[in-house]
């Protein structure tokens, strides 16, 4: 079984996009390139408006990931749970495809007798523990998100605590949007230690723009850039993509 890298974008936002491409389309594009998109919506109190919720669900569905809407207080636990579950889901997808190759027909975990599922899950659990993971964190810093940024920071540190307890390697990168010059602005380059996030999010002009779609597009591009650079260096660290065989 070839070792690869799981690639995820984690989008943290509190509402609707209002500028640029449809974020769901960009998430679908990410998925085509083997990048899973997870979305977490943060609430102050009360409920999120229906449009915001729908958009969050649509992005995650298109990006092959998970979505969750939570109160700021529950953010830490949610961020790490969503990331882990999405990993399991991706790996399970890969293992399911592997099963299909073995059995020829459309066999998934659900079709196996309960007693056999355990063996498959052991493989998935093992992979989930050892596989390398790249997470690009994309944080909405527009308007009302500002007050939630300290909580977001705490949640991200907690995420790295959870993921760094795994045997596999992790790399995190943090982008915020809207950026000063571009739609999304890089805060932290790929690093295994997210604790570097000690720099406070800079003050940004809140022009009311929430370019979620364009920001996602730039995040995907950043993944690709990293990849081409790495292949240039000659690192054989291939990502898992849709067609890959284990």
């Amino acid at each position, binding site marked *: 079984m070839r070792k690869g890298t799981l690639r995820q974008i984690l989008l943290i936002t509190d509402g609707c996009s209002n500028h640029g491409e449809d974020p769901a389309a960009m998430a679908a594009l990410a998925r085509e390139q083997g990048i899973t998109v997870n979305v977490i919506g943060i609430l102050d109190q009360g409920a999120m408006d229906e449009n915001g919720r729908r958009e969050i*669900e649509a992005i*995650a569905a298109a990006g092959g990931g*998970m*979505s*969750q809407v939570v109160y700021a207080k529950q953010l*830490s*636990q949610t961020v790490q*749970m969503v990331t882990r579950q999405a990993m*399991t889901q991706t790996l*399970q997808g890969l293992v399911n495809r592997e099963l299909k190759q073995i059995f020829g027909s459309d066999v998934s*975990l*659900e079709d196996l*007798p*309960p*007693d056999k*599922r*355990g063996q*498959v*899950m*052991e493989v*998935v*659990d093992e992979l989930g*523990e050892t596989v390398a993971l790249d997470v690009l964190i994309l944080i909405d810093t527009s308007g009302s998100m500002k007050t939630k940024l300290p909580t977001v920071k705490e949640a991200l540190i*907690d995420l790295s*605590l*959870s*993921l*760094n*307890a*795994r*045997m596999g390697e992790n790399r995190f990168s943090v982008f915020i949007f809207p950026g000063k010059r571009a739609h999304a602005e890089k805060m932290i380059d790929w690093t295994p230690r997210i604790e570097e996030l000690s720099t406070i999010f800079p003050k940004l002009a809140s022009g009311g723009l929430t370019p979620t779609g364009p920001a996602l597009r730039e995040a995907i591009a950043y993944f690709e850039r990293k990849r081409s650079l790495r292949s240039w260096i000659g690192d054989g660290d291939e990502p898992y993509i849709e067609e890959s065989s284990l």
Partner: protein
Amino acid sequence: MAMSHTSKNRLCNLPPGTVITGKWHGRSYRLLRRLGSGANGVVYLAENGRTRVAVKLSDDYASLASEMNILRRFAKVQGAALGPSLLEADDWQSPFARETIPFYVMEYIEGENFAAFIRRRGKEWAPVLVMQLLSVLDRLHQEGWVFGDLKPDNLIVTGSPPSVRLLDVGGTTLQGRAVKEFTELYDRGYWGLGSRKAEPSYDLFAAAMVMISSCCPGPIEKKGDGRAQLLSIIETDRFLTRYKEVLQKALDGRYRKAADMRRDLLAASSRHTSAENERKAVPSRRSGRQVKRRRQARGIVETVVIAAALLGAYAFYIYWQLAM
């Protein structure tokens, strides 16, 4: 996500009397009542003929399969009941879902929730039950596991004499891996006191937290420096103070083995029991602090202070007697 949310809601609210029939083995279980629900499923008390069992249903095939793996492994460990024993695994063709719903059937452990038991029977049970818990954990650790999601809700006190059993194995993780499931309050990572790597000291931190939270009346919520906050909770509680050394050592991750923590807890308990007896025999000893005050106080103030102090000490003594 939204879909699975509604189906989970339905799973959590199955009416009593619902019959669940497995599609692979064909056995039926009639649900009696809900026992509890967690992050990845819901557990019902059910009966199959005259046998009472616990049935766990979930919409997550993967996590259910992982849990069953652990229960099967546990079953192979001789001489100690690490978790409930697994009886059967099957899928239910439910009336409200297009797909089948996986479930497994396990032994029903009748008993009382850990926290409720301590509230009802008294704090002095906490160290006793934690010692029992440490014996179980020691065995679990020897087998190469870490329980992970250790908290009062995952512990049940059963039988007479009361003994503690582990319930939900969803967080159980092979040592050296990342802890699969945890609850913030009992997680050393949350308190800033260590990693989430599955190692025995992770469980021992949680065991100390179980003892602290079950003796502490109010809810605990982290504010600022986690370690200082926990130590102050221990120091301000008259009962927990006696176990300060053990608890502090466990919180700091300085125990490598559950057996070591158990030994120290036992020593602290017996030390305090004997100190208690001495104190009962010589009650005048308790006024050591008052002697100092008496020297400083004068006239009426002196009398009032002594009277108040004695009254306080007496109330303290009565409370002590009742609380013990």
